[in-house]
């Protein structure tokens, strides 16, 4: 075995338990099948597995921080292709121990937020509770409707060199990572499908079903109500936002932020397009002190004012209860064995890593004396102290710490150093000589339990965390660690239940989507508007770039683009600088470019495209589109999300501050790619999304934006007396109608057919008329769905009137008075006709802006900006 090629780099360490190797000669039996499968693999297969994992993770956008920020704080989740394997008998012990511990901690919470007998009796030091910033006094006396303070619990486990499992830490507030465990499973089980089946690996779905069922059963519903569960997230800036949105989708719970919810009376409601909908259960990923600015942290803008009150009234179930974070303290570990005897009348099934809380004099003495062998940890999270390893301290450092401990003993805990066990991982791909070698890394497992009316259920599996290098005992994804799928083997056939492919009957068929939150509709609306604005901006910029690249920087003296575009047609309508100036003028119309000042046109175009500090640059609009999309991430398919991110990437790679500044020559091809990505984005919007009311708002946003862009461009064209040849070309290109025109007329463009195509042809999806037709149609269906809306009524009527007036305009009116009867006209005497049409277009433009505001008032604005705390 040791001579084996797979193991030629795999170092056994005497101080660690090896999960795979029993000794130098033998594999542990439960690793045998995996090892053989690996052994039978070619280097290509190994590489392919690695690549599959990388690809899946990238494609799923599984990142810590999904909001792809310019500073690049997002970092991909890393997953090792090899699972961590545990045999059935060993698992049985872990399962029982974790369930017991969850039960114990739940009872401790019930006491601390109830009679506090544990403190009075001396079983628990007051300091560890009242001194802990996670103990929330306003929640004292609350009794959850389920009787449980904990619903989801996670234990971080590690195995010591003698093979025993230990608890390293308890996660009682908002245990994270169960979604990653699921994600890892869906990837790794596909890497080794036969093995997964033959080994009889426990599925994870039952755990999540227990969570769904239990929350629904404990929901404090009034007669006739169906339990309504939501997942409360701190929002897309949170480092585990992806996981939250992934879990929400998997569990079928709406993902909501604090601003989606409101407390009225003593009940919690979700603000939806259709009105307020009562929420019975909140699966919480928002930290508890942020959950209610009225009674908890006043500066929080993420929470729901009145939530503590609603919980106190028993009208909403919070999983986990507010204040459950108080148990996350290394100090508590020392007291749990006694508490187990006291509360459960049985010994603790799994020991925790030996810990000494320095608030007790003998413990303090012991810790000071053994500082070199111990790790110092804070007793309270508010200390923000990273663990201090005694072995890394010199004599002076130890003296310093001894003094610090004696000074404020109750704030510190001494803990034994844990030598983590090690398991095989595949080295990073790219290092081809290593393709068939395994390396050893320290691991720990996070195991999850869920409260059910029948007792605690433990997820058969979990999140295995892997250290970043072979001799490091810190498991942290932030510090370069990785993760593994966790395979718990069964001796009997495993439950095949899956939440992914539930077999529903005819009675389960649902047509309408779930209630749409107002905030969701608002963000979809703005996603639509910004996506369309990006497309329009790209078209304008590309047109200007092309003109510039064709003719170079404008000759001196023709540098006043606005003037040339607006008034210069008569003087120099054939002169090339006029064409560039026209193009720049259109860009300026939309505020795309920075002020002229001393910048060259080239510089201004580059900045207008890429500078995301510009108030209305392409990059800024794209950033806003991505932001809006991030807010509704769970409503977009993965493909849809990816195409938006690809769009974002195109620009990010071209940033001016990037090492090679973008030069104007490459800008058009960048813009081409942007336009292509925009079109695929619009394809997703049109063809791929469910056409529920949320979708209608996305499309409303797109239509309003496109209508505004088109009507503005055409009005500008008309007012600028744009009847020059380049002007008509510009109009066709900017309105994305050039192809259509060529197909229809097979000749160089003339003004009247152009105006017909761009303004009046309702079959042309780029025309003004198409947008107004569609808008009126969607507005009708919104009105049918949500009944007549007093706020929206006036806006809609004014808009309808404006559209009717525009449609009544006849192009024949433009023809009369033109010399030569309307062929290619370079000068005409009919400014009145053009001005009339321009005015009608501006009225439609303004009416659509008003309409946009009315829609916001009617459907969104009960979602108000961040609440403020007042104190007197």
């Amino acid at each position, binding site marked *: 075995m040791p001579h084996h090629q797979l193991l030629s780099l795999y170092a056994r360490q005497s101080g660690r338990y090896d999960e795979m190797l029993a000794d130098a000669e033998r594999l542990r039996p439960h690793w045998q099948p995996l090892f053989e499968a690996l052994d039978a693999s070619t280097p290509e297969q190994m590489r392919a597995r690695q690549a599959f994992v990388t690809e899946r993770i990238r494609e799923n956008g599984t990142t810590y921080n999904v909001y792809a920020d310019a500073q690049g704080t997002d970092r991909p989740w890393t997953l090792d292709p090899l699972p961590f394997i545990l045999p059935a008998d060993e698992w049985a012990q872990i399962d029982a121990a974790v369930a017991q511990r969850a039960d114990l901690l739940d009872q401790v919470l019930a006491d601390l937020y109830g009679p506090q007998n544990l403190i*009075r009796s001396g079983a628990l030091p007051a300091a560890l509770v009242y001194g802990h910033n996670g103990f929330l006094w306003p929640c004292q*006396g609350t009794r959850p409707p389920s009787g449980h303070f904990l619903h989801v619990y996670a234990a971080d486990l590690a195995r010591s060199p003698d093979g025993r499992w230990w608890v390293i830490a308890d996660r009682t507030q908002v245990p994270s990572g169960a979604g990653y465990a699921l994600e890892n499973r869906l990837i790794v089980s596909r890497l080794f499908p036969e093995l997964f089946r033959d080994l009889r690996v426990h599925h994870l779905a039952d755990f999540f079903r227990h969570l769904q069922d239990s929350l629904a059963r404990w929901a404090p519903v009034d007669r006739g109500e169906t339990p309504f569960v939501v997942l409360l997230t701190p929002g897309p800036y949170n480092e585990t936002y992806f996981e939250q949105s992934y879990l929400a989708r998997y569990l079928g719970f709406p993902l909501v932020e604090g601003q989606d919810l409101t*407390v*009225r009376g003593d009940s919690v409601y979700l603000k939806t397009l259709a009105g307020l909908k009562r929420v019975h259960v909140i699966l919480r990923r928002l930290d508890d002190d942020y959950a209610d600015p009225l009674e908890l942290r006043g500066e929080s803008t993420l929470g729901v004012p009145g939530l503590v009150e609603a919980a106190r009234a028993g009208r909403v179930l919070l999983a986990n209860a507010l204040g459950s974070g108080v148990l996350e303290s290394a100090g508590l570990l020392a007291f749990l064995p006694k508490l187990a005897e006291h509360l459960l009348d049985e010994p603790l099934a799994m020991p925790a890593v030996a810990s000494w809380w320095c608030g007790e004099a003998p413990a303090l003495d012991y810790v000071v004396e053994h500082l070199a062998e111990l790790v110092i940890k804070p007793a309270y999270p508010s200390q923000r102290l990273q663990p201090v390893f005694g072995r890394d301290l010199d004599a002076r450092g130890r003296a310093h710490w001894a003094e610090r401990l004696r000074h404020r003993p109750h704030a510190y805990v001494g803990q034994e150093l844990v030598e983590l066990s090690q398991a095989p991982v595949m080295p990073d791909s790219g290092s081809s000589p290593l393709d068939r070698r395994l390396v050893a890394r320290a691991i720990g497992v996070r195991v999850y339990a869920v409260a059910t009316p029948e007792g605690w259920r433990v997820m058969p599996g979990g999140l295995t965390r892997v250290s970043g290098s072979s001799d490091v005992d810190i498991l942290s994804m932030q510090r370069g660690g990785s993760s593994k799928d966790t395979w718990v083997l069964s001796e009997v056939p495993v439950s095949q239940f899956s939440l992914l492919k539930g077999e529903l009957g005819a009675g389960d068929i649902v047509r309408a989507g779930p209630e749409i939150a107002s905030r969701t509709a608002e963000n979809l609306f703005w996603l639509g508007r910004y996506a369309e604005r990006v497309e329009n901006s790209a078209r304008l910029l590309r047109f200007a770039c092309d003109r510039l690249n064709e003719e170079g920087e404008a000759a001196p003296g023709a540098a006043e683009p606005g003037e040339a575009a607006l008034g210069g047609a008569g003087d120099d309508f054939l002169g090339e600088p006029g064409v560039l100036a026209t193009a720049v003028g259109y860009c300026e119309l939309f505020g795309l470019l920075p002020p002229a000042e001393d910048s060259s046109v080239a510089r201004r175009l580059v900045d207008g495209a890429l500078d995301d500090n510009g108030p209305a640059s392409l990059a800024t609009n794209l950033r806003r589109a991505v932001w809006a999309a991030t807010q509704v991430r769970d409503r977009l398919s993965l493909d849809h999300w990816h195409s938006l991110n690809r769009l974002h990437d195109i620009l990010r790679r071209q940033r001016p501050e990037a090492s090679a500044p973008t030069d104007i020559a490459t800008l058009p091809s960048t813009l081409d790619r942007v336009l292509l990505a925009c079109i695929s984005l619009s394809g997703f919007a049109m063809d791929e999304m469910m056409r529920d009311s949320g979708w209608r708002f996305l499309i409303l946003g797109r239509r309003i934006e496109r209508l505004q862009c088109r009507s503005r461009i055409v009005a500008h064209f008309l007012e600028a007396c744009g009847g020059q040849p380049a002007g008509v070309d510009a109009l066709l290109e900017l309105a994305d109608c050039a192809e259509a025109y060529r197909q229809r007329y097979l000749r160089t463009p003339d003004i009247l057919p152009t105006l017909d195509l761009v303004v009046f042809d309702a079959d042309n999806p780029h025309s003004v008329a198409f947008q107004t037709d569609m808008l009126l149609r969607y507005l009708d269906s919104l009105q049918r769905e949500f009944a007549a809306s007093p706020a929206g009524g006036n806006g809609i009527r004014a808009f309808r009137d404006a559209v009717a007036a525009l449609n009544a305009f006849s192009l024949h009116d433009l023809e009369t008075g033109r010399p030569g009867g309307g062929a290619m006209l370079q000068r005409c005497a009919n400014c009145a006709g053009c001005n009339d049409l321009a005015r009608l277009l501006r009225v439609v433009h303004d009416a659509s802006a008003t309409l946009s505001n009315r829609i916001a008032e009617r459907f969104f604005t009960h979602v108000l900006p961040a609440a403020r705390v007042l104190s007197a």
Partner: protein
Amino acid sequence: MRYHVLHATEYQYEQPVQTARHLLHLVPQPLPWQALERQSLRIEPEPTTHMRSADPFGNPVDRVEFAAPHDHLRVESELIVAVGDRPWLATASDGPAWERVRDALDYHAALLGEAEADAQRMRFESPGVRVKRELEEYAAPSFGAGRPVIDAARDLMRRIHAEFRYDPDATEVGTSVVEVLENKHGVCQDFAHLMIGCLRSRGLAARYVSGYLRTDPLPGQARMTGSDASHAWVAVFVPEAGWIEFDPTNDCLADERHIVLAWGRDFGDVSPLRGVIQGGGEHTLKVGVTVMPEGDGVKFTTDQSRGAA
């Protein structure tokens, strides 16, 4: 002594407030030496819901909710309250050495008495009073070895009063204790927080007391700071004696001039009026407090300050 207290708070909002929830700590805890004879609370506009209950420290708290738009909020609290002598004022001794009090409160894995269990709640850092090393250092001169706890606290109070300048414009509700210590000025809330932090840094239990102070502008005598505003001071736990109240703003023990409203770990637990509004834009706040000893007439002041002396 009987008092008639009027405490009016008024917010004017620039834009209508859509919805709002407020917590009011305006009704006194019942105390052996303080009898509440009359109490009324007038709130305008009419709240959508209004509920009174006790907070975790035993203080009455009114919870009001407004579900309809409104452009102002006026809360008028009126009390008739009789204040007698604090029982501990008769205590002649200065109490045990402060270290003995500290050690007695430390964890001994033993059953706690009712009073000690109560004291534990006020012994540690709280959201408004972080216990920093600077506070311990500042307290040091008052906490010589073996000094009786009441004497030590009195000395600490005296020093705060002597070394810190009263300045209602220097700090805000959220000013941290360490900033107050650095800049050596503030209002009663800041001095109370500072003294609490110093006491807790020494392992003692100290709580924040919110209330009112009667001032006596007698001829020839200076008007005491804090007149006609809500006031705040500090109570220190002394075994056997109970909670002894110190007023660092005025360098005195609390007496029948000090009317207790509520106590907690710090201001945040017992803020007279705390709320979250949605909408509203800018706002103006007027707070007026009048404390009339028995026999006088009643009138309102319209103090523009934040209402904490």
